[in-house]
């Protein structure tokens, strides 16, 4: 197991409100790493920071290279891919076109200006892998919700991302789709680092190799599922929120 991404002391400020407050995080290849925590804990903001969308202090290093201050598309070129809470695929393009675009960030201007003769091999293979082998010519806009999420993951795979940051990949999915997604995540994590932002605790218990709990912008606990769920502070945050919502508001506001 090797470390794919190292984050040190990440801090994000929004006009005086500290959304992420000194987070250290390591993502290893071969692991499905869950990021959990109550609303406002800073999970998505952390992903925003790593991918260059939110300004931060601290450091994010991949393959020995500091990523802070780089532009969004430069960070993506270095193999860091993300999905969004609401599946964002290009709805008026077909599944094949979506994947072909995702596979082609390194194409020369000249090849861009020509027509696509045939689909690249990895696009065809990925289409099968995400269960959309029969849907190549289907406009992405009419896919089922779960299929869109898979397409999004597929788009990261063909783009050769080896650090995947997935924001609520099973939101709105039925039971069978969740199982399929969970197995897919482990499958693709074999030679990649996969981080999953999730609220669904059952899903987390079933598929997490490692869990990091965020609370009020800071890391509360990190470890295996058992270690984390046995941690009294984590129990307090999760149980406490049910009884004292004001306390949580005060902590996150």
């Amino acid at each position, binding site marked *: 197991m090797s470390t794919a991404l190292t984050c040190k002391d990440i801090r994000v400020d929004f006009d005086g409100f500290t959304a992420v407050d000194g987070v250290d995080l390591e993502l290893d290849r071969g692991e499905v790493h869950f990021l959990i925590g109550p609303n406002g804990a800073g999970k998505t903001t952390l992903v925003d920071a790593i991918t260059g969308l939110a300004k931060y202090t601290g450091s994010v290093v991949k393959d020995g290279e500091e990523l802070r201050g780089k532009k969004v598309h430069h960070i*993506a070129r270095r193999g860091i891919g993300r999905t969004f809470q609401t599946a*964002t695929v*290009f*709805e008026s393009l077909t599944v094949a076109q979506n994947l072909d675009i995702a596979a082609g*960030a390194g194409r020369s201007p000249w090849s861009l*200006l020509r027509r*696509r003769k045939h689909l690249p091999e990895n696009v065809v293979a990925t289409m099968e892998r995400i269960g959309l082998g029969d849907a190549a010519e289907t406009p992405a806009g009419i896919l089922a919700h779960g299929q869109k999420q898979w397409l999004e993951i597929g788009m990261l795979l063909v783009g050769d991302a080896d650090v995947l940051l997935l924001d609520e990949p099973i939101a709105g999915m039925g039971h069978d789709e969740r199982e399929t997604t969970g197995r897919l995540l482990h499958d693709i994590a074999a030679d990649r680092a996969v981080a999953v932002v999730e609220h669904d605790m059952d899903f987390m218990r079933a598929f997490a190799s490692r869990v990091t709990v965020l609370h009020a912008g800071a890391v509360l606990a990190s470890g295996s599922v058992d270690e984390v769920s046995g941690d009294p502070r984590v129990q307090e945050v999760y149980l406490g929120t049910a009884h004292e919502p004001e306390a949580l508001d005060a902590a996150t506001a």
Partner: protein
Amino acid sequence: MKFFSTRAGTWTGFAAAALVLFGLAPLVLSGFRLGLLAQFLCYAIVAVGIGLAWGRGGMLTLGQGVFFGMGAYLMAMHLKMADAEFRGGPGAVPDFMELAGIRELPGYWVPFTSPVFTIAAILLLPTGFAVLLGFAVFKRRVKGAYFAILSQALAGAFAILLIGQQTLGGFNGLSRFRYFFGFNLADPVNQQMLYFIAAGALLVVMAVALQLRRSRYGELLVAVRDGEERVRFLGYDAANIKVVAYAAAALFASIAGAIFVPVVGIISPASIGIIPSIMFILGVAIGGRASLAGPVIGALAVAWAQTALSEQFPSAWTYAQGLLFIAVIALLPGGIASVGALARRLPSKPTAVEAAA
């Protein structure tokens, strides 16, 4: 409609268009009407570019008059220089300058004696300006409404700037051209030649636009329109993608302006400011912003209606323009090109509108 997206269909479409433009139109139309059609074809060339930038790329360019005007003024300067040289030998000033009491030829006019320089300028200057402006704007992620308003402000500023330039004819602009690269413009044969140039340019521009649309770049452009942020997260610099379409639209508009000048015989700030620029949009919207032939047909239809109606019924025509804007954009954002698709999809479910947000 599906047929026209196949390879055979494309050739059929272009062949039919060429047949109508080069065969039928010169046969049935009088010289005067052919001249009008040539003028409309210039608007159609601008429309092809707007269709690319706005329909496919989501950039609402409300300032195409700037690029149209650049091409037109660059060409007009050459024609005036050639006329002056013909009348008074080398170093003579164009007639309008004499009338305004300008005896010395301004330095920046001198290179326009050369036809090669002029054509190069028409092709490169507006395109280069669009690239510069595009980078300045898109790299900073100025988009959507901000971009639309900036492009409109640019058109306004450009027209006002031209009005202030006495050495470019000021408010009256440049007019009364006698020769076009040595051909007498009063000769009907040469007027027909200009029509053929306009028709040929339209077909070439459409072919270029088609290639851009069908290439991987074309798919990428639509992707940027529908999810610019997402494209960035896939590792592309969205600004570069947008600049290409914006520059292509500028180039098309410049070519159209350059042909417009000898065809119509006048270019003035009044035909390139804010209002003319936004009027370019109307035809594109009516025909169908995202299709290739839609903007062309829409632009031709609007130009024809304007000529037919505006002199006899100026008031009614303005109402019609306003109501067309309202009705087409609000009720049929895909334009006429979407009617067929709408009818096919109607039984199943409401169509997802190809709206550029």
